């Protein structure tokens, strides 16, 4: 058994090493064919042609077409230049055909400026473009304000300045729809298309060598635990002796890896295209020949980690049916709702929506593109949108009333699901101090407030989009754009907080840092749970011996013992109802229950702890 374990560990480490090493193999070369395959297929052909041709030209000028690079780092360092150059060239080129060329400008000036005086008018435009009604219209539409009665140019230069500025906008706009903006997505696409080598040639093999070996090794390590750990019961032996689970060197290494992983995933996805190539065959199961994005890679890793570590949970807590059922539930919701449905819905032209994701954790819900995306997908799409609203506004508070927020946080939610499986070994690392509780409340309610403000902006914008399509700057309220707010929120909260800190810091801050300090949905449900719910953790009379197991293993950093040793039930907005305090308590003191709040029994501390009859009689007198 021990040997199987050790072999498993070695197999896992080999798989992991291959995974890391796979980032550093292969070469990168962009060719005309690659560009074609990238843009011809995704855009309408004429548009694709334009883009491909322009990128090709720019690549030739930069001397990178068909040139082989030995790493994604050196290759991608040219991409900003490539894209900017290509975009500029497209704009220039289009001006000839559909915009206003320099020669034509001269023609206008010839007629519009006579003897140092500006006499620009509609007639001038009509005369210059007598044979081109399209350009006539374009210019009249855009510059009629310049020959308005009230607009008199004293100086020729002023006129020229206004005119040329306007032209820049007109010509620029023409190109925009052909632009390939320089952002992480374009860079990812280009690097992925350019990648060559052992991985792209043997995706299946590498899928086996990385995911395969890691899963296999991990299971070889985990399954013997059923026997090695001894009979069913609490298995926390050595948690604080183990460098992995007590912020020792293994924990630090895991932390550094996770941190790098999240930073690459969110901000530099083009550097990890090889990892996405590895899961291409898997993506192919959904759409034949499709190429996996970084989000597909992430979804796969997420679901695989949860499943493997979920098996670990089944073994570790096999004596505790609450833990078994709960773990089965989070796995179900992750695999079916967060992973499979999100892949499958788009196959039916439906929005790729995680149906269990609720506002305000789903902060895009009321943004115009999301709203229109749903409404453009017909009845089912509209139904899905309405479901999202009903879930957030009705289902969630009602369920929290009956069962506490645990029904979501530790039974359904994806973030919670990862925390309860992959994160379980780190639960004891959450900070229990009072000061941390104070910080927690400030932080989480600030994020919640931010999410509300952002939603107001998004709603305002979407409302305008529907009711006043003619309005300009539909997204701006109080001088701030809904898009800008979303961009900042997405960066700071959605990426840095939820991902990099929330998961990256598992080995340092425990497995629920995001849920405890940042999640706006947790804040929302927490308010309901604290003030209007049947849920509580019941303390069993006077049985507590203040040992501290409950507090130590509370992933949310609740000092459970502080309540239990007073004979008080635990009602805290942050409690996600994982049930581990109840599981680890050696004296059977704690139980998660949903019950009425008779005479304040739900959360009031008893004046006398059960057992001190003398004091009770005295106080009753």
């Amino acid at each position, binding site marked *: 058994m021990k040997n199987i374990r050790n072999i498993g560990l070695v197999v896992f480490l080999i798989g992991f090493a291959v995974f890391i090493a796979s980032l550093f193999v292969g070469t990168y070369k962009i060719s005309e064919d690659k560009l074609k395959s990238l843009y011809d297929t995704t855009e309408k052909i004429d548009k694709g042609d334009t883009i491909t041709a322009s990128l090709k030209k720019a690549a030739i000028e930069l001397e990178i077409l068909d040139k082989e690079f030995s790493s994604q780092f050196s290759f991608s360092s040219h991409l900003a230049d490539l894209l900017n150059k290509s975009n500029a060239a497209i704009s220039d080129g289009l001006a000839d055909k559909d915009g206003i060329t320099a020669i034509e400008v001269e023609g206008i000036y010839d007629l519009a400026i006579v003897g140092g005086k500006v006499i620009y008018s509609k007639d001038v435009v009509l005369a210059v473009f007598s044979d081109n009604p399209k350009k006539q219209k374009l210019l009249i539409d855009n510059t009629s304000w310049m020959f308005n009665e009230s607009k008199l140019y004293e100086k020729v230069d002023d006129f020229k300045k206004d005119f040329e500025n306007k032209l820049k906008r007109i010509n620029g706009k023409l190109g925009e729809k052909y632009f390939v903006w320089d952002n992480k997505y374009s860079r990812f696409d280009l690097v992925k298309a350019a990648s060559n080598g052992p991985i792209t040639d043997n995706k299946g093999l590498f899928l086996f060598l990385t995911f395969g070996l890691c899963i296999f090794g991990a299971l070889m390590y985990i399954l013997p635990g059923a026997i090695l750990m*001894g*009979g*069913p*019961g*609490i298995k*926390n*032996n*050595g*948690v*604080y*002796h*183990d460098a992995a689970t007590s912020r020792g060197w293994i924990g630090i290494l895991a932390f550094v890896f996770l941190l790098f992983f999240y930073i690459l995933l969110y901000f530099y996805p083009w550097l990890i295209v090889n990892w996405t190539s590895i899961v291409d065959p898997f993506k192919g199961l959904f759409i034949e020949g499709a190429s996996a994005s970084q989000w597909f890679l992430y979804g796969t890793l997420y679901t695989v980690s949860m499943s493997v570590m979920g098996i670990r949970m089944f073994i570790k807590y096999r*004596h*505790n*049916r*609450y833990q*078994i*059922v709960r773990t089965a539930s989070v796995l179900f919701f992750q695999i079916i709702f967060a992973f499979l449905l999100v892949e499958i819905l788009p196959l039916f032209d439906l929005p790729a929506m995680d149906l269990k994701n609720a506002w305000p954790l789903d902060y895009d819900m009321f943004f115009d593109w999301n709203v229109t995306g749903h409404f453009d997908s017909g009845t089912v799409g509209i139904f899905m949108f309405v479901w999202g609203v009903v879930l957030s506004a009705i289902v969630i508070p009602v369920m929290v009333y009956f069962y506490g927020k645990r029904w979501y946080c530790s039974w359904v939610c994806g973030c919670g699901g990862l925390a309860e499986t992959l994160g379980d070994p780190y639960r004891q690392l959450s900070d229990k*101090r*009072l000061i941390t509780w104070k910080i927690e409340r400030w932080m989480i309610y600030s994020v919640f407030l931010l999410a509300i403000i952002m939603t107001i902006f998004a709603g305002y914008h979407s409302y305008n989009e529907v009711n006043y399509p003619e309005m300009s700057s539909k997204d701006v309220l109080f001088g701030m754009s809904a898009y800008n707010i979303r961009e900042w929120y997405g960066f700071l909260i959605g990426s840095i907080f939820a991902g990099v800190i929330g998961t990256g810091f598992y080995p340092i801050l425990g497995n629920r840092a995001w849920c405890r300090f940042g999640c706006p949905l947790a804040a929302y449900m927490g308010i309901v749970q604290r003030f209007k719910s049947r849920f509580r953790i*019941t303390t*069993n*009379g*006077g*049985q507590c*011996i*203040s*040992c*501290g*197991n409950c*507090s*130590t293993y509370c992933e949310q950093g609740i000092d459970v*013992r*502080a309540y239990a*040793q007073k004979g008080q039930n635990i009602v805290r907005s942050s409690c996600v109802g994982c*049930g581990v305090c*109840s*599981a680890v308590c*050696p*004296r*059977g003191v704690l*139980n*998660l*229950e949903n*019950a*009425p709040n*008779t*005479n304040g*029994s739900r959360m009031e501390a008893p004046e*006398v*702890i*059960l*057992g*001190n*009859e*003398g*004091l*009770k*009689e*005295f106080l009753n007198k």
Partner: protein
Amino acid sequence: MEHVVIIGNGISGVTAARHIRKLSNKRITIVSAETDYFFSRTALMYVYMGHMKFEHTQPYENWFWEKNRIELKKGLVETIDYSSKTLSLSGGDQVTYDKLILAVGSKTNKFGWPGQNLKGVQGLYSKQDLDLMEENTSVLKVERAVIVGGGLIGVEMAEMLHSRNIPVSFFVREDQFWGNVLPVKEAEIIGKHLESRGIDLRFTTELKEIISDESGRVKAVVSSNGEELACQFVGLTPGVSPNIDFLKETDLETEEGIVVNQFLETNQPDVYSIGDCAQFSKPAAGRNNLEQVWYTGRIMGETVAQTICRNKLAYKPGHWFNSAKFFDIEYQTYGWVHSKLQDGEANFYWEHKDGEMCMHFVFDKASRKFLGLNTLGIRIRHEVMNRHLDADSTIDKVMEQLKDANFDPEFYRVYEDEIVAKFNVEQGTNISAKKRSWKRILGVG
């Protein structure tokens, strides 16, 4: 301002301090020798097993004491002068008091075995014992450990060693586990459970001698049946007794412990004693004169605080209850279930087919009044049992409302119907277990 001095920062002393602070503005000082801050003795095992760090056993953060104006003084009290109301500490420091609370706890019993002071031989009571155990089991590879004395601390020590893969032989004087407390059936379950975890249990076996190697470290023990067993660690856990050597043969009345009346007053004016070290001259009805468990120490602390703050209050605990854990089997008890049935008592026993779970009820044969319940592997709601004991419920009513008493986590298998059915067969009754009722549980209607 009146100065209350407490010796001992265990659960009893600290509870007294907290409650005096709640009730008054008196100056409070706790003098203690073992650790800087209050910690939970009951959790020592979890530190050794790596479930927790020592800090986690401290129920209050370090700022708590200053915030509540409870002065902490680390030091060993060597003598007490009751006439001048002065304590002398080992370093030479002196502390004077207006009121003194002795909450000095217990120490491990040692019965004068040959070799009991060798290296590698120890009890488990204090933080120092914990550190020593860490050292004793890490400086040298322990191939086998022997534990002497089959009580709660003995099992804890066995579990601790087991967590580090150290083979354990467990000497128990009686022919069953924890013989003076547990009835045979429960003891058998625990015995089997320990054996299933690989513990080498030896009943009716006593320690005769501990044998030393050249360096003064244990190398073997000799048992009462003459067998010599090689081992590198010996855990002595034959129970504890009040830690009052320094108080003996002074003006303070002591016997086994510090003798107190029902108000926790000693024979010296303004001197009180609480917790493990207090011995009642007249025990409360149905209780022992020494009560060496966590919650009784707490209740004594709550009680003496009232007395000191001028609400003279007698120590009056309610119905007996307690709990423990033997490896993976949890034990709870409410009311009295003695190891042997007492005169006029009848019992009803149910055991789960897997043999790791049971419920054992005791009641009065004539009146059918419910007297007590032992459970293994099933958690019971304290409130509900306490109410039954308060109300002199019959065993039949307890059975009828058994579902109210279950305190196991959600989704656990429940056995009340099976238990009640067995009860009906044995008792010729026709009870059906009522559905769980929050109204009854929460005490309304």
